[in-house]
């Protein structure tokens, strides 16, 4: 009988490791510890490429650098072509503005991925400014304020609620799909309402409600499958009173 040096229990004679705490038994085999370490580091080396060895922060920095190089290249090329063609900035204003907004969004996402509310707020602000800028470039018809921003706001709020619901749900299966379908339904109602106000000046829901009703129906079915059929909790057990 030998004793584990770590937890002090007795082990069978022919073991190399403690079966309780996993400590290698050095008295039994002096190479154990060195061998273990070597094998583990070898395995790690084999498993991981250079990219996998980077920390999360380094990975995000690389993603950020690659995206600004691509965006900047696109911006410079379109600017040169535009200038060569027209001797002034004409159509290239669109790719330039859009690229700047995309760049802002990527920065915000990579930097603030933990702070969801702030991330969505800054992203919303930048995209809303883009809509207004596009409206101005296209001759100030006013659609940006009256149609674009309400739709954008509705979309952001829906996405926020969707992410919140997904994070809160303990099981992740068909119920996630149900949430996404329901979000699409809610978004349809919002779109329907906002367009009706923009076009006719009054709030009318038509097709949006039909879409919502059908998405709710499908979602209920998916929830049922997820929570009742997949997990065999019988109702008697769950509702015993």
């Amino acid at each position, binding site marked *: *009988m030998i*004793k*584990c040096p*770590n*937890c*002090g*229990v*007795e*082990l*069978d004679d022919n073991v190399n490791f*403690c*079966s*309780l*705490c996993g400590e290698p038994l050095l008295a039994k085999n002096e190479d154990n510890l060195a061998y273990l370490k070597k094998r583990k580091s070898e395995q790690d080396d084999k498993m991981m490429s250079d990219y996998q060895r980077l920390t999360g922060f380094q990975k995000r920095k690389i993603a950020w650098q690659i995206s600004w190089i691509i965006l900047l290249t696109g911006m410079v090329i379109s600017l040169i072509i535009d200038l060569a063609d027209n001797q002034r900035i004409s159509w290239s204003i669109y790719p330039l503005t859009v690229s700047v907004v995309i760049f802002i969004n990527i920065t915000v996402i990579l930097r603030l991925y933990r702070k969801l509310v702030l991330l969505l707020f800054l992203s919303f602000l930048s995209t809303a400014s883009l809509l207004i800028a596009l409206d101005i470039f296209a001759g100030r018809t006013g659609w940006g304020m009256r149609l674009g921003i309400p739709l954008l706001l509705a979309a952001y709020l829906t996405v926020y609620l969707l992410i919140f619901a997904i994070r809160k749900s303990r099981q992740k299966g068909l119920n996630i799909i149900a949430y996404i379908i329901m979000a699409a339904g809610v978004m349809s109602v919002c779109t329907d309402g906002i367009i009706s106000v923009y076009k006719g000046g009054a709030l009318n829901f038509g097709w949006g409600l039909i879409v919502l009703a059908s998405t709710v129906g499908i979602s209920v079915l998916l929830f049922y499958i997820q929570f009742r059929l997949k997990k*065999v909790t*019988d109702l008697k*057990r*769950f*509702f*015993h*009173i």
Partner: protein
Amino acid sequence: MPKKNTRTIPVTNKFWLTLDNAAKIFPAVINDELTSVFRLSAVLKHPVRIGALQKAVLKVEERYPYFRVQLKEGFFWYYLEHLPVHIPVEPDIGRYCKRFERGSLLLRFLARDNILSAEFSHILTDGSGAFEFFKTTLIHYISECEMEVPPEYLLKDPADMVHEEEYEDAYKRYFRQDIPPMIKRSKAFHIPFRLKTPPRYSRLCMIFPLDHMKQIATEKGVSITVYLASVYLYTLQRIYEDMNHSGRPRNHKKLRIQIPVDLRNILPSKTMRNFSLFVMPEIDLRLGHYSFEEIIKVVYHQVQLETDEKLINKNISRNVGSEKKLVVRGIPLFLKSMILRATFYSLGTSQYSGVITNLGKIAMPGKTGRMIDYFVFTPPPPNKMLKINCGIIGFGNKLVLSFGNVSTSGIFEQNFLQFLKQQSASLEVETFN
């Protein structure tokens, strides 16, 4: 007399149980500090043989299928659901009485050097039920170490012999509808010590020679439980008297001590789940200082009175009766938990000042007994109102008291020991953590 329950356990994956009456409060109040987990330890004469322990646990867990359950939330109540995993055997290195995570079993085995322990959630069972299980495991552990098992502890096929009576809610069996309600008690005094910063729970154990302690108690004409409960009350009184006058509570001058009683000794039942109640002897400090002799007299007579079968029945009926009301049953679980949490302190803990649990003197079959030096019963962490509690267990000639404490002060334990020494100067004691 209630009818004998002879149905057997359905051994399927869909096996589930409702919580027993005493367990219903625990899921609502459990947190990282107040874990409702207690520990039974056997200090062996030799280091634990881990291979033998693992084999013994695998054998014994088959015999007690109703302990392999996890806690689940229903719509109206929590319930226990069969969880087909093995009971874990872990190295004993972390904190005592750590909480059981969601989705895990409600018991674990721990081993270190020559100490073999098991921890149980109070949701599952009480001290006596747990000890029966622990004892069976010990006997089979010894048998794995190449010794024979006494015939009454041989395990048969569980499907043949696990009767429903073993895992039924025995409180319900002895419930009677036609019993008058209980009178509410006034609030009791609580130790004024400051709480430690988490993790709070610490333990102090004292080992006394059992024969000497028995002799001291017999001289006073009482049992060890009554004697030590009286010392507990006397120590509480001293802490109250040592407080300066302005600091003393004005209204809460009753000292009450909760002594759990194993109901299996009074009402016949084979249940392995919770089946205990408590008696609460009290002294009223508004009437002045009590001498130790007076306290012993009060405790002795109150314990005699309150362990009367009729009074026990009354208490069971009160507890089970409130659980059976349709109004209570129909409240959704999250509301019920909120109400239980709120009433746990206001109606429960506020009524008593301390708890002392005696598991009694343990008998073990010969060979197993010879491998064991002594047992330790570590009580569940006391709540922040109570701050201190005490667990007692005796084996051979060793009586082990272990004090659970969540406060920054060790004065209570000091005073307790000092008083015992005053009573008998020759009393030997060994303390450890």
